[in-house]
């Protein structure tokens, strides 16, 4: 087990290093791009050349990469041209907002999708199973950009219950958080619920669960004590891998609701061609993805004893 953990951690570091090299080559291989991004399109070639020399961009690529990586590791991420402030500071504030959004997303998603999936998988083929399956397949067919529009049409424009933007101009407000969280959960719960259902149905058909039923144990006990433990292995792995999906999802939802979060920051950085900000944002997403994938893999091994010797 310990060897497996170490191997997986090494793999995680290697992935992050490779991703950083890829991003560096994409963004900074040609120093001209950096100068263009930092000084803007109206700078002269002479100004850009001077800026490059002054900032050490005349050094060999290998040295520049190592220095860039070093700066990144110690948290010196440069200044954002768009926001006229240190990148680390902006990313910190935005990340915090998205973390709150992400927390409520998972707080709602996990009980809803696992609950529905378990209910449907417990009795395969029942009317409840069919109703849940139809609900899930329809909601997963509504992409986030459409669900934001549709739920706004209902709750904002028709019923006037909720605010249509979540910019939180006058401080944090839970009322403004409802719509973004709802849009994300609506698209996503069906997918997890369906995986849970398939996994649950499979476990319910195994010999040991049938043996438990035949022994005369009450169904509640069979499901909660015997079946769920094994049925939840697959959804757990999936939920961890979902952090990666969430980043894609929040970009759309934050953009629509003008939520000042990490997702909209990535979009602003790339549309505004703010190179240092974009570099920091993408490195953070890769970091988060690599860490959660590692946890998912190790969790899978830890939860499923059959995998330990593999």
């Amino acid at each position, binding site marked *: 087990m310990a060897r497996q953990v170490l191997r997986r951690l090494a793999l995680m570091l290697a992935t992050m290093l490779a991703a950083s090299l890829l991003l560096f080559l994409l963004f900074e291989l040609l120093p001209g791009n950096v100068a263009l991004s930092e000084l803007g399109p109206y700078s002269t070639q002479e100004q850009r050349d001077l800026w490059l020399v002054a900032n050490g961009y005349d050094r060999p690529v290998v040295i520049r990469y190592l220095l860039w990586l070093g700066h990144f590791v110690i948290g010196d991420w440069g200044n954002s041209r768009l926001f006229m402030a240190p990148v680390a500071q902006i990313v910190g504030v935005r990340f915090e907002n998205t973390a709150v959004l992400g927390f409520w997303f998972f707080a709602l998603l996990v009980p809803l999708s696992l609950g529905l999936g378990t209910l449907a998988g417990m009795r395969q083929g029942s009317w409840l199973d069919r109703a849940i399956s139809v609900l899930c397949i329809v909601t997963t067919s509504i992409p986030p950009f459409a669900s934001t529009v549709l739920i706004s049409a209902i709750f904002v424009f028709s019923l006037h219950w909720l605010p249509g933007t979540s910019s939180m101009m006058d401080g944090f407000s839970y009322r403004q958080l409802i719509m973004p969280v709802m849009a994300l959960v609506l698209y996503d719960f069906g997918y997890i619920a369906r995986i849970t259902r398939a996994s649950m149905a499979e476990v319910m058909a195994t010999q040991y669960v049938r043996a438990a039923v035949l022994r005369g144990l009450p169904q509640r006990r069979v499901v909660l004590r015997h079946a769920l433990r094994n049925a939840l292995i697959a959804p757990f792995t999936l939920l961890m891998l979902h952090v990666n999906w969430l980043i894609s999802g929040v970009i759309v939802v934050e953009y629509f609701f003008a939520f000042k979060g990490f997702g909209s920051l990535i979009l602003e950085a790339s549309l505004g061609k703010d190179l240092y900000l974009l570099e920091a944002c993408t490195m953070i997403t890769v970091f988060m993805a690599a860490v959660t994938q590692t946890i998912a893999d190790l969790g*899978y091994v830890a939860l499923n004893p059959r995998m330990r010797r593999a």
Partner: protein
Amino acid sequence: MSAAGAEIAAEVLPPPSRGLRFGWIRRIGHSKVATIGLLIILFWAVVAVTAPWISPFPPNLPIRPMASAGVRAPNGAVFWLGTDHLGRDILSRIIWGSRTVLVYAPLATACSFVIGITAGLLAGFKRGWIDEALSRITDLVLAFPALVLYIIIISKFGASGINIVLAVTLASSPAIMRLTRGLVLALRTRAFVAAAQLRGEPAWRVMVVEILPNASGPLIVDACLRLGYVVITIGTLGFLGLGLPPPDPDWGGMINDTRKFALVFPHMVLFPCLAVCSLVLGFNLLADGLRELVTED
């Protein structure tokens, strides 16, 4: 994860056979879900092909701004779904927009599958350093959230149909490679593969003729799901302003252009939304129905 993939794969694999198994195509009619999905997709395919004849107005022609559904144009024709903020007929734009989606989504999916299957076959069958190298590249690409990858690529290389296809191929072929690799790992130790090797069949033939047809079921189901997902991706890029350049209609772009007016003119955003959702639903239903048919095989 690969071990988990193989575990799942082993359960859905049909018995060995040579040549593609198309039994499930004839039985699509047996699955209500798959039939409904297929009908929805066919509906949009017909709409896309016949766009020049069935669309009542040219898609980019400004006629009468902000007309709601059912209002008549100066020449007497009806705006069935109303017009947008520039006065372009929404029905015509949805009809022409179906062409964008139904050209680029299948094209991008096909490219991803060609690359993903080739890499997966090589990695799963040859093993060794090829497997190691391909798996590490896969890990690397999958470490980027898909939309972040699209945003980086599109904002760096510009928004065009080709770039969207390339970006989707880059982002989705690793997942297809993983799936194929898992299926191949479950198949390569089977007797019919050993028999083919003993007969002296070359490696490519064993991979393409012996192994691939037996792995086709789960791959076809994945292709349907992925088509739906690519439709969402193209819509999302349009919605974020990174889609195809205007003025040609694109469902995601239509939603983004008119969502400012949703408070007063909800029809402008509602109909393109319904168009995207119905097409995605079609692919999801077809995938769901096929999954059961393929497992029966």
